[in-house]
């Protein structure tokens, strides 16, 4: 990209303003994308990244400001028009039709604008196969439902590529991918960029920016802050630009050697579920944060859900502080003090249209009700306020619906819900997915604080830096079995990826 750097940028945005009522989402931002570069756009939730992308994609109309594509001033009135101009947008949430084939999904837009009366499936499949060849091994005749999330993401990219796009926008594409899948995606991204495609890459993750992007632009509070060449900056500088203050430590301090305890809070022996995992044994010690690593589909969530009796026919023993538990369904687990924070906050974690207070009390209605089962709304609100204060939850009013909060604050509500029952062990599945840097650090601090208070903490995460940064010990899961344990110096991304993907069958008791 160096030789062309002086040329007219493929996309240039100047002084863009967009308000929603009294809220100014974009306050005159600038942005410049060069031909063939991978340009990261970073910023916390609410910084204006998505708003800008929605303007570029024609979903939103700016109040003022200019967009120039290849030196030509354009007004993008709709996503269809953005497509015609050569702008492809892969949204964070996958929007494919699950019950039709990959090929039909890829050519959905083409079918829509086609004049032909009949579908030519054979031709469509052949063309789809050609595009998919660039991206990896996906069968164009497969039903989208049968694909993994990462494959679906690639189909989304294929869809954008069929439109001969010049600018490809990827909005947090790795949020649902494992490290390995993400790696494949990055390789594809580099290949496409080498072919001259210009890519805008939206992300929170520093590692991704520094491993894969050429330049990075930072937004904060709807304002353009800076653009830096990745080679000439540091993750610390980018994070500081994002949050507007210096963040000293991304992760809270770990458990000190001398604080190690041999006291076991939770012990699992021979936990087996016919189809998804077998013979899982683990011990969680007092004061430690235990991580579970593994590829998507390896069975990490299933194991934890099995321990809590959330799903599946599970056999095996679960002991809490030495006492064997008789668990039949999740209600029993909650009563015993084992709680599970779901990985899909919006899908199955929160009641979005209900108030913060009602969300927090969902596990613990009995605590805020009289013996006769009458809810005391005052107590319910007070409980939510107390836990909200402890987690530094930002809200206007405890009665406002959960949907009105930012991702990080929604996650805090979900955590508050878990804490309301004073759990003995808390299992968190992807606790910081889709959460911005500031809130992420806060959630990590909350977890450490819980561990210090002798609550057992088990974290599942697909983000290896997070596991390594937060956990005192990490168990690696592959194909429904625990295949390794890493601690201290052993705890490296390479080691974990190796165990998760190849494994050396060192069994852990």
């Amino acid at each position: 990209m160096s030789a062309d750097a002086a040329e007219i940028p493929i996309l240039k945005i100047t002084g863009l303003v967009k308000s929603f009522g009294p809220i100014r989402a974009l306050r005159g931002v600038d942005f410049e994308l060069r031909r063939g570069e991978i340009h990261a756009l970073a910023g916390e939730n609410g910084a204006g990244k998505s708003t800008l992308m929605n303007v570029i994609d024609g979903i939103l109309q700016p109040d003022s400001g200019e967009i120039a594509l290849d030196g030509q001033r354009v007004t993008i009135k709709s996503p269809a028009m953005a497509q015609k101009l050569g702008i492809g947008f892969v949204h964070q949430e996958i929007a494919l039709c699950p019950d039709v084939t990959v090929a039909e999904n890829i050519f959905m837009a083409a079918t829509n604008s086609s004049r032909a009366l009949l579908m030519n499936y054979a031709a469509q499949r052949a063309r789809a196969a050609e595009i998919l060849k660039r991206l990896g091994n996906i069968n164009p005749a497969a039903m989208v439902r049968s694909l993994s999330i990462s494959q679906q993401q690639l189909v989304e990219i294929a869809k954008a590529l069929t439109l001969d796009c010049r600018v490809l926008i990827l909005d947090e594409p790795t949020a649902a991918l494992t490290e390995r899948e993400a790696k494949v995606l990055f390789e594809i991204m580099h290949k496409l960029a080498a072919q001259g495609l210009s890519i805008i890459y939206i992300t929170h993750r520093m590692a991704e920016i520094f491993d894969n992007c050429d330049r990075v632009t930072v937004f904060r509070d709807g304002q353009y802050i800076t653009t830096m060449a990745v080679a000439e900056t540091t993750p610390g500088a980018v994070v500081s630009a994002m949050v507007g203050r210096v963040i000293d430590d991304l992760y809270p301090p770990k458990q000190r050697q001398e604080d190690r305890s041999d006291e076991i809070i939770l012990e699992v022996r021979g936990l087996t579920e016919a189809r998804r995992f077998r013979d899982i044994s683990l011990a969680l010690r007092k004061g430690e944060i235990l991580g579970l690593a593994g590829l998507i589909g390896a069975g990490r969530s299933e194991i934890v859900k099995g321990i809590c009796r959330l799903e599946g026919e599970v056999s095996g023993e679960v002991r809490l502080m030495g006492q064997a538990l008789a668990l039949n369904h999740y209600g029993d687990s909650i009563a015993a003090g084992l709680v599970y924070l779901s990985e899909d906050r919006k899908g199955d974690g929160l009641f979005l249209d209900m108030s913060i207070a009602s969300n927090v009390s969902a596990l613990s209605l009995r605590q805020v009700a009289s013996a006769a089962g009458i809810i005391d709304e005052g107590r319910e609100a007070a409980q939510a306020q107390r836990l909200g204060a402890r987690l530094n939850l930002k809200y206007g009013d405890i009665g406002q619906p959960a949907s009105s909060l930012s991702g990080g604050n929604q996650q805090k509500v979900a955590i508050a819900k878990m804490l309301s029952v004073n759990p003995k062990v808390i299992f968190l599945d992807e606790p910081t997915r889709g959460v911005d840097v500031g809130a992420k650090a806060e959630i990590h601090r909350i977890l450490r604080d819980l561990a210090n208070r002798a609550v057992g903490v088990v974290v599942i995460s697909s983000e290896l830096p997070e596991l390594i940064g937060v956990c005192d010990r990490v168990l690696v899961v592959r194909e429904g079995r625990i295949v390794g344990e890493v601690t201290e110096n052993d705890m490296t991304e390479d080691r974990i990826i190796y165990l998760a993907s190849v494994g050396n069958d060192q069994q852990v008791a």
Partner: protein
Amino acid sequence: MTKRSLAAAELPPQTQGGAANGLLSTAGRALRMRETGLVLIILALFIAMSFASPYFLTWTNMRAMAMAFAVEGIVVVGMTILLISGGIDLSVGSVTALAMVIAGLLFLNGVDPWIASGIAIAACTAIGATMGFFVTRVGLHHFIVSLAIMVIARGLCLLGTGGRPLGLYELPNSFKFIGQGAIGVVPVVLIIFVVVVVAFDFMLRRTTMFRKVFYTGSNPKAAAYSGIQTKQVVFLTTTLCSALCGIAGIIYMARFGSAQPTFGIGMELNVIAAAVIGGASLSGGTGTVFGAILGTILLSVVSSSLALLDVSVYWQDIIRGSILLGAVTIDHYLNKRRG
């Protein structure tokens, strides 16, 4: 970074306001707004109609209107709770008729009317439990299950009576009292209605049992992940709705002094419309008994007004349908703006 989260970011970090106050605001405010709106519309209709027709504000007309919505209102309560849990019941009309027919037939065969009524209500409850079984255990959709039960229950009504109304001239006055009597000037039907409404409104807002109904309807998976046995909740709301139909059927029987196998055809539409106008959502999770009753009253005032204004019966359905469409459209846009 959507509009929503920005709005949240702009909000003051914490309010020190009273706890209970906090709960009632925002979430409650939207519903409260709707309820206030409905009351205003009903009042406006009252004022307009009192000028348009001299009979409207008469005691007879008021009483007739109250009788009309009171019994159906009991069914509306059941439907609203079922809608909140994420279900729907198309069989309410025929189950109500079936309660009448069962009680009527038993009475004609010499069973004491009170015992006959108890058996009829139990039978309706069993029908609801059957639907609940098919929905929660077999895994079918409410819509289809209740459609089938709607047809089956109607068939049973016709089978039991040969399609003719059963005249129950021998019903004792003490029994007819629940449908026709009055305490002072207040019809007993209205008293029963008010008791049912107040009781369920309170329970729905304040008891843990019914709070679970909201959780289940708002997000069944999140409810399950909160340890709530969602199937049990849906089973109970389905059963409750049919049980309330049974009670309504018995009151109708006492009021008419007969059992009518063809009674209640199309009732499900009226009942669902009332609940939805009052704020219940077909996708579950929202609704109030009070709002649903205002919806019932509104539809009933409109019907009565149209009759008094000599508008053809055929027009009435068109107008009722249009009100429903208008109400949900306004609602849709209000929701969009809010969220």
